[in-house]
Structures are given as C-alpha cells and as structure tokens.
C-alpha cells in the first residue's frame, strides 16, 4: 500500500464522451490531450461531471484504462471509483489501481442514505481493500449525504485515506476541516464558484468541472495566491464567475460538454436523461456561448451573406462549432424569438430582420405613424442598422412607461450595437439591413437593471437565432411532446 501521493495544482473532473458502444475512446483521448496541453496537472475520470452514474461497471473500467494510458508519464490519474454500494466501490478501486491510477476519489454513498456509522465503515472497508490512496468526496447537493467536519476527524485517521474533495461550497464546514487537519491530510476544493476563497483559505488544489476548459486559469490563480497576490487571484476568478456559474448550475457535465463542443473539442452529447434545452436551457446555451466568446475560446471565421447576386462576408464571425451555417443565403426575412430571465422582469422578444426593400418595408412604413387602435412603433435614434422598436403591451403607469420606452428600448439598442461589435453582421450590409423588435415588459416589473439585462440578452440571442435559423427542425420534432409551454397548464 502506497500513500505517497501529493495533490498538486488543478485536475479537471473529465466529461466522458460517449458513442453507441460505450466510451468514445478517440474523443476521450482528444479531451485528455487538450486538458494536459492547457495545463491540467492531473485528471479525474468518472467523477460527477463524467456522468459516472450513467455508466456501467465495464464502461467505467474502460474509462480508467483509457485515462491511465493517455496520461501515462505526463500527469497522475485520480479515478472516480465511488459507488452506492461498498462492494462495487471496492471493485472499481481495485480495477483503477491495476491500470495505474495514482489515487481514487470515492464519493459518499448516495440515494439510500446511510448513517454516519455506516459511512465510516464504508470508507474503512474501501481503504483496507485498496492498494492506492483514497480521497473522500463530499457533494451533498446530489448525494443527500454531508460529510461534517467532525466525521472527517475520524475518517482521516483511517489508514489509506489521505485527502478529501469538498464540492459542497459550504465554506463553514470546509474551513473547520482545514483548521483541524494535520499537514498530511490533503484537502481540495471541488466547487468552481468558490475556488478562490477555498484556495485562499488553505486548500491544496482543485478538482473542477470547468478545468475541462481552462485549467490554466486556475493554475495561475494558485500561483498568484502562492506569492501572496490576492488581487491577481481575484481578477482571474471574477473573469470566470459568470461562465462557471452557468455551467455549475445549469447541467454540470451537460453544460461542459456543450461548451467543449462549441470550442471545437468534440465530446458528444450527455447521456439521457440529461438533454440540452432542459436543465441547460436554450437561453443558457446562447449565454454560455457569449461567455466563451468573451474568454476568446470560440473560433472566429468567415460567414457568407448572400444579397441577390452579391456576397458579403462577415470575416470574423464567432463560429461556435455546430451552431453557425457557412452561408446565409436569403436575407429577405429572418425571424427569431427569445425569452431571457425569469419572474416579472422576464423579457420575451419576437424579432424580424431583413433587407430594407423587402417585407421589412412594412416596419419602416408603420414606424412613427399613429393610427387609431393600432400600436405605435418608432425607429430608435442614432442606431445602425435601422431598428424599429415595437411595444405591444398596454402601458399601465409612468413607471411601466419608463421601463418600456427608456430601459427596454435602450436594451434593444445596446444589443444591436453589441451584435455589430460581435462582428455578426458584415459591415457593408449594415446600411441595407432593418431590424424590428417586439418587446414585452410585464406591467408589474420593477427592477430596471434586470429589465435591461434580460431584454439585452433576448434581443442579442434573437438576432443570432434569426440569422443562424435556430432551433432547427430536428430539435422541434424531438421536443414535440416534452416541450413545456409555461402558460399552457391549469393553475
């Protein structure tokens, strides 16, 4: 039994690429190469992000084999060998050791919630039967079981248990664990959103889902903290916060896979029951895409816009893999819809765009005119391309009026401007293009900042969806029965 394993740096909790047969070895190796090249100091196959509960025993063993072989001589492997039953966890740990894993990450038993006595015995048995050192893994959000600091007091005395990953984001419990541990017990943070405070308060490293994407940034964070530069660490964490908040809270591995696919690192889709458009909502996918653009992780390239016989080219279009057609062949009339946000400040936008001399003529003709019993619309001042703002809600009071005609209108203008700076629209096309946005602001909305953010997002997404013709017919057909219109149900 060897206990000489020291956790250093940042390990990604690898997503698992699947194909019909099982683990997609080619994509898995591709991903492992990507993370090692990007600075990962180790890898974790079959963690929570790796959808280990959607894998058979043999598939997990196969994943260990591939991971150990692909990482060999470069970085250590910490295999996710936890299971609901003690017996299976022991067997998985043995198999991981055979392939050369350096350590095992063992999640607490889940679903049937054992008592602390039984949790203690579970770990004792696994450690006794294992040739490689064990890390405890606490993730109460999904297991329903929490490892309290006073339980760690006992567990860390067990021979072979040398450390712990805490994904709870409960800094109270984590801090107590850190204060009470001897130097020999290693503690790593497993929750991306609190990586900085956890590392700053004494964690030895991190195992993170977003380290599939940018492990280097966490390595730099750790280095900054090691030299006492909290400010640098803070800058790094804050730069990632929105991206990781989306991924952690909207599907986990499902979201990480979506991100990697968009970046051109193919990892396939998650296994059912996880599907895109569900916990990772359509608006989250679009938002995640813009976050990755901000981090310069989305490739840019040309997209052709056909305008009669002319072809205009957006040279630096942000081409999230799999979302963007090479050619936009008809600019007569593009139609997009988007909802963003929730509650009373929700934004729901219907948007049409197209060439000035096409059907959008109707929008230009109606703008600024007042016809009895028809909603008025206006062209937004000082904005290119020409944009018609339409509010179809009946104004109830002055506050509502301001939210519609000041806040939401400004949001539309900001989103159109942002689309131009996003380089979505070829410059020569701008004078010929007209956009019209139908905006709805709830009469009871209150919070101007959220009204702005939600309408900004919705318009930005609607423009892209109109151009890229999303969602596609396959998605419409696939979700015919499971789609849930929020207002279609009885109260």
């Amino acid at each position, binding site marked *: 039994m060897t206990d000489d394993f020291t956790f250093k740096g940042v390990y990604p909790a690898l997503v698992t690429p699947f194909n019909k047969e099982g683990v997609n070895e080619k994509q898995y190796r591709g991903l492992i190469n990507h993370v090692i090249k990007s600075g990962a100091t180790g890898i974790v196959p079959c963690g929570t992000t790796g959808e280990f509960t959607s894998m058979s025993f043999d598939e997990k063993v196969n994943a260990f084999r591939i991971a150990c072989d692909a990482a060999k001589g470069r970085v250590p492997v910490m295999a996710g060998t936890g299971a609901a039953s003690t017996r299976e966890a022991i067997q998985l740990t043995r198999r991981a050791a055979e392939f050369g894993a350096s350590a095992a990450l063992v999640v607490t038993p889940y679903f049937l919630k054992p008592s602390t006595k039984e949790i203690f015995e579970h770990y004792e048995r696994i450690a006794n039967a294992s040739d490689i050192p064990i890390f405890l893994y606490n993730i109460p959000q999904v297991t329903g079981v929490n490892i309290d600091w006073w339980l760690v007091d006992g567990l860390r005395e067990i021979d072979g248990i040398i450390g712990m990953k805490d994904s709870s984001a409960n800094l109270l419990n984590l801090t107590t664990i850190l204060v009470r541990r001897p130097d020999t017990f290693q503690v790593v943070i497993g929750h991306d959103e609190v990586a900085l405070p956890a590392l700053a308060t004494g964690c030895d490293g991190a195992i993170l889902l977003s380290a599939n994407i940018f492990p280097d940034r966490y390595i730099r964070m750790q280095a900054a903290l090691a030299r006492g530069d909290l400010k640098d660490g803070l800058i790094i964490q804050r730069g990632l916060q929105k991206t990781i908040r989306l991924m952690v809270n909207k599907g986990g591995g499902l979201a990480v896979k979506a991100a990697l696919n968009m970046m051109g690192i193919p990892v396939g889709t998650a296994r059912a029951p996880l599907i895109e458009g569900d916990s990772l909502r359509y608006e989250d996918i679009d938002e995640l895409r813009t976050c990755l653009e901000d981090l310069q992780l989305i490739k840019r390239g040309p997209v052709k816009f056909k305008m009669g016989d002319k072809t205009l080219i957006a040279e630096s279009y942000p081409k999230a893999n799999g979302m963007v057609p090479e050619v936009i062949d008809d600019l007569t*009339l593009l139609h997009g819809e988007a909802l963003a946000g929730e509650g009373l400040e929700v934004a729901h936008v219907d948007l049409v765009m197209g060439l000035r001399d*096409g*059907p959008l003529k109707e929008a230009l003709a109606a703008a600024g005119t007042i016809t009895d019993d028809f909603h008025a619309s206006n062209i937004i001042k000082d904005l290119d391309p020409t944009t018609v703002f*339409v509010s179809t809600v009946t104004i109830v009071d002055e506050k509502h009026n301001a939210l519609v005609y000041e806040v939401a209108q400004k949001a539309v203008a900001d989103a159109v401007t942002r689309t131009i700076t996003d380089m979505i629209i070829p410059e020569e096309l701008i004078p010929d293009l007209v956009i019209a946005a139908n905006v709805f602001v709830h009469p009871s909305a209150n919070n101007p900042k959220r009204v702005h953010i939600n309408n900004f997002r919705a318009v930005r997404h609607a423009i892209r969806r109109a151009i890229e013709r999303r969602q596609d017919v396959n998605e419409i057909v696939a979700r015919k029965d499971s789609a849930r219109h929020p207002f279609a149900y*009885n109260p």
Partner: protein
Amino acid sequence: MAKYEPKGVMPALVTPFTKDGDIIEEGFKDIIDYTIEKGATGLVPAGTTGEFVYMRTEERKKLFKMCVEFADGRVPVVAGTGETSTDATVKMTKFAADIGCDAALVISPFYLRPTDKGYYEHYEAVARKGGLPVIMYNIPQCTLGVLQSNIVEDLAELDNIVGIKDSSGHIGHTLELIQKLDGKIPVLIGHDECFLSAVAAGSSAAILASANVMPHIWLDIMDKVRKGDMKNAAKLQLSVQTFARIVTRNGGAPPVKAALRMMGINAGYSRMPLNSGGTLTHELRAEIQIELEKLGLIEALTHPKATKDIDIHAVLGKFGVGPDYLQDAGIGKGSEDTVSVAIVTGPKHSALGSAFVKLLVNPRVGHEALTVILEPNLPVRPTSIMVPIKKIKSMRQASLFYGPVQSGAARAVAAHLKNGKVPDQAIIDNVMIMALDIDLNSRNRRQVTAATERVVSAALGQIWK
C-alpha cells in the same frame, strides 16, 4: 365555566386595509356577518391571514374589540395573540381575555426562535398567565420552526391548552399529531389543501384562510365525512382544491381579499410590502375569478362560441392586411366548439412576407401577433405567427390564447414536421399566419391545448396533404 372546545370551521379573518393602510371597519363587519351567515363556527382575528405581523399592539387590541363587538355573542372569538416574545404574548392574551374573547390562537415564537424547551416554557407561561384557553399554532413555512409532536403532547397535559392548529401542510406531521394526541386535545387543520385528509383522519375543527370566502363548502365537506359519504366529500374538496392552492401558495391574504372584493365585500387590500402586485398578479386575479365562477360564488359572464368558418380575408383586412397581401397564399381551416383556426402560408418573398411583418410590428390593439412556439426559445418552422380574432381584453383571454392555444398550435406544426408532411422548400421559404378564435367560456387548459392541436392539424392537412 365550561372549557372552550374548538369545533367546526372558522375563518382566519382578513383585516381589510385601505390602500393607505387604514383599517376598514365596515368591511371587517361585512366579512364577519357574511361568514357567520354562511355557518362559520367561530372567528379568528389577527391570524397569519389577518396580517398580524403588520399590526402594532394597539391596533391588534382595537381589532379584537371590534371583532367581539361585531360578533355580538353569535359565535366565539379566538384571538390571534401570538407575539415574538413570551411577555408580550402573555400581555396580549390577558387583554383579549379582559375584553371577552373566548380563546387565544398562539403562534410559535419566530425570528429569534427557541428549540424544544423554549417552546414548552413559552406555551406554559401563556397558558398559566394569559387567562384564556390556548390553541397552539404550527406554521413552519413562516416561523421556520416546527412544533414537534413530543412537545405538543407534553403541553396537551396543561389545563388551559385546548388545541393545536397545524398549518404545516405536511400531512404526515398532521397525522402524527392526531395519532399521538389521541383525542386529548383536538388538532385543528390550518392548511386549506389538506382539509379533507386531515378531517377524515380525525381532525375535528379548522381555521382556514379560504373560510373567509367559502366556510359553507368546508362545513359541507366536514358534514359529509362525518356521515361517511367520502365520495362526495372528496368531490367537493377537489372542486375547491385550485382555489385552496392559490390561497396557500400566494401569500394567503392577498388572494382572499381579491376574492372577497370580487364578491362585493369590501375586504380592502394588504399592507405594504404585500400589496404592490408582486404577490397578487393580474394573472392570479384572473385565475381567482375563474374559480369563483366555477364555485358559483360570483356570476359567470357567458361568451360566444368559437366562430365556425373564419373568413380569413375579412379578418386580416381588419388588422390592416388587405386581400392583396394574400394572393397565392395556401389556405387551410379547422374548427371545433372550443377553438377554430384559419391558416395562410406562402413564400416569404411573396406579399405574405409583408403581411407577416405588418401583423407582427404594427399590430391592432388586442390582436397582437406572437411567434408560434412549443415553449419559449423553441419556435416552430416554417416561421409562424398567430393572431387572436377576438380582441384580447382581459388576462383570462390572454391566459388562454398565449398558453394553451399557442402550445397546441405549435404541437400540430411539430407533428406535421415529424410526419414529413411539410415540403423541405416550405420549411425554409414559407411564412405562416394563423388566425385563431376561442370559446372564452373554456376553463380547462388541457382541453384547449388538445382542441387547438386538432384544428390546426386539420388546417395544415388541407395545405400539405
């Protein structure tokens, strides 16, 4: 003096406030008269539904006085005398005793909340010193603390403790109390949604928010259970279930007050911060109205049925889209009693593309077009909008149209796509406009969704065979 025994159904009286926050005495009296006339067996002023946390000590005292005066001996008054501190609770209970209240409803201390021993000593003090029979009150949704059954069992031994009101909505907890107390003191059900289950299991009285509105229905259910007519008891409970759910899950007082106002009783408004339309939204008011109509508590307006054969040219003409726009468009129609549709579709380069834009960005008031979506962020192809033929004047209409109708229409299109019935060229090139009419008497949204899917499917079948 005979010991007070809670029984029957008592309203947790709302406290009517003006929009400025003053108590409306007349309204308070009207609610008391109405509920007693409908059979209420007691009155509970200054409970959770009475917004007691928004009232100062003196106001609560005034409210108790009013309640005793207006009740005029017709039914007992159970005063909500709970405060956060034990001393204040004892004082308030003494006051209620002095002015002639019959019992006190005492909420478990909240915000700074004790654990078990503290609860025991709190209730013991109130029972010993308050001078009134005490009903303990468990509502963990608000207090964040639970009165566990072992504490309640111990307290039930005290002379002046005469009941426990459980509003937890946790039927396991309610039944635990009924079982362990074993008739020693009654368990009053305080959660409208769980009324039947609790009464059937042995709860012998109730204090309910919705008993401001419909005490007679609750009493009827109780009566049926006692006679062993479970089938009709269940039928009645389920008929009020939606209203009960609306009340318990939307702040209690605001929906109850809205319902009473609709019934012509001046129940006023809630006090800040519960009064700005964040809790009681326009949409929720529309739902309350539908439920009251269903229960026969207010008169229902009757609406015309859906138009059978929609003249799409005439309809769109009224929205500024004349016949010129519709040349070469494919037309399909479908109709049932609940919903009917006419669909036009054609290439976006044709005049129909202009009609599409015009209807969307220059809509007639009350006839606003919306994208046809399976759910938000999942619109159908070919690119489609839908327009209501009847003017949308109320939230009720809006809630039928921009929900079930939208969903049903989208499902029909998706089904046609799935069956390969829409030509590839049309998926890319076409725009589609659906004009829809609905029977506004419809109340069941699932049926509206299904009917819309059928009629839109029939209409699409005429266009793409």
